[in-house]
């Protein structure tokens, strides 16, 4: 596959790991904040290729994992409304809420469907005018513009039975919060596709204040390793800064059309990140102008607050303070088949990936 296979060549990977080994002296902790990076690192076995002094930490980059449990409860509530179709990305289907999951609701007769594109959900609404179609919007800057485009289309075509439940969030505030929390880090591997949309200027204040390097990385093994190499070089030369490794798809200005759409439909709000608490101005809320397509403003979807189960240390894992292996619930009470905490619920959560690939 073009633009994929070339970046997986073994000799290039070996060359990068050799180079990293050659110049890297210090103990280094690098955090990635993207579920896609977590998956890629595990899938390609990159941990086994890097020298022991380089530690890759998985941060809160899995949007499913960091969405509050109430979000699932609210989606479940939508699916039980009479005449509803709940159309969702596959990532959410099995995530457990407090008492149920979308998969379980499907089992008891709710109309729950998986879509690949949010526009498919809009189509469903157009084709089923007597039904109410609900779409739970999860994801960061990569995916939020798609939801925005869907809402704009629904408005333009006067489709009034399409509703979005937004749990969209943005990255820079959580990265800053981690630094403020005093998480021990030497640099960030920044998310490639989030940055393709949002550009890289947004990392500058973080880099300036924290003195940490930020390298925007792609998702092939050479991309991630090259980004590690770039961060190691920054550290060895004491020149932390914002750099782009993923230059074939990321420009500093990002995708203006996508960002404009996002700004048109959403505004920032304080938002609860599961395991991390409330982070100011980190969530995306549908603007008043598009309130008619906001599920929460149009339906009574109040759900009770939900506590985290005892023994769950996802908060510490998401901050990179602890590893899955440190959790007493890991692989015993908490497994991918029966997840307890946020980090296990999605296949790219830190604990799920660890369970699958490294035990």
């Amino acid at each position: 596959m073009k633009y994929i296979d070339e970046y997986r060549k073994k000799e290039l990977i070996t060359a990068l790991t050799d180079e990293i080994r050659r110049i890297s002296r210090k103990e280094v902790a690098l955090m990635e904040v993207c579920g896609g990076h977590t998956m890629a690192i595990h899938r390609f076995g990159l941990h086994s290729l890097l020298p022991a002094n380089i530690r890759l930490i998985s941060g809160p980059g899995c949007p499913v994992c960091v969405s509050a449990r109430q979000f699932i409860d609210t989606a479940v509530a939508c699916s039980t409304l009479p005449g509803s179709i709940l159309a969702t990305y596959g990532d959410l289907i099995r995530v457990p809420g407090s008492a149920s999951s979308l998969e379980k609701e499907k089992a008891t007769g709710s109309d729950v469907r998986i879509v690949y594109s949010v526009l498919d959900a809009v189509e469903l609404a157009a084709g089923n005018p007597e039904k109410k179609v609900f779409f739970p919007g999860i994801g960061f800057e990569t995916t939020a513009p798609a939801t925005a485009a869907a809402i704009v289309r629904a408005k333009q075509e006067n489709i009034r039975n399409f509703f979005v439940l937004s749990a969209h969030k943005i990255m820079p505030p959580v990265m800053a919060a981690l630094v403020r929390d005093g998480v021990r880090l030497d640099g960030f591997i920044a998310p490639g596709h989030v940055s393709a949309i949002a550009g890289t200027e947004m990392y500058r204040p973080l880099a300036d204040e924290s003195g940490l390097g930020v390298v925007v990385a792609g998702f092939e093994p050479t991309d991630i390793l090259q980004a590690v190499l770039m961060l190691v070089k920054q550290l060895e030369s004491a020149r932390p800064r914002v750099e782009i490794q993923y230059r074939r798809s990321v420009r500093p200005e990002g995708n203006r059309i996508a960002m404009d759409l996002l700004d048109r439909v959403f505004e920032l709000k304080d938002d609860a990140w599961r395991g991390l608490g409330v982070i100011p101005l980190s969530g995306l809320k549908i603007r008043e102008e598009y309130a008619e397509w906001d599920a929460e403003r149009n339906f009574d979807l109040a759900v009770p607050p939900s506590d985290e189960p005892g023994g769950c240390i996802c908060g510490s894992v998401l901050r990179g303070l602890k590893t899955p292996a440190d959790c007493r619930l890991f692989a015993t009470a908490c497994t991918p088949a029966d997840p307890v905490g946020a980090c296990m619920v999605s296949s790219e959560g830190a604990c799920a990936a660890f369970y699958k690939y490294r035990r």
Partner: protein
Amino acid sequence: MCLAIPARVISIDGTSARVAIEDVEYQASLLLLEDVRPGEYVLLHAGFAIEKVDPEEAAETLRLLNEIAAGGEEAP
């Protein structure tokens, strides 16, 4: 949040484009991307083309990687 795949643009049809990855084809939305031409590559994510793949930058990255492999002078 990032499963996006480079796909070749086959044809443009208004606000969507027919794209191909190997023999797999899809009608990707162009609501987030303008000025796309057949033959170019875009990143396909959740049904949308979200950005182009720049062939020159792609080649430059490979050139850099090959240099490192050859043991030459490398600079980020």
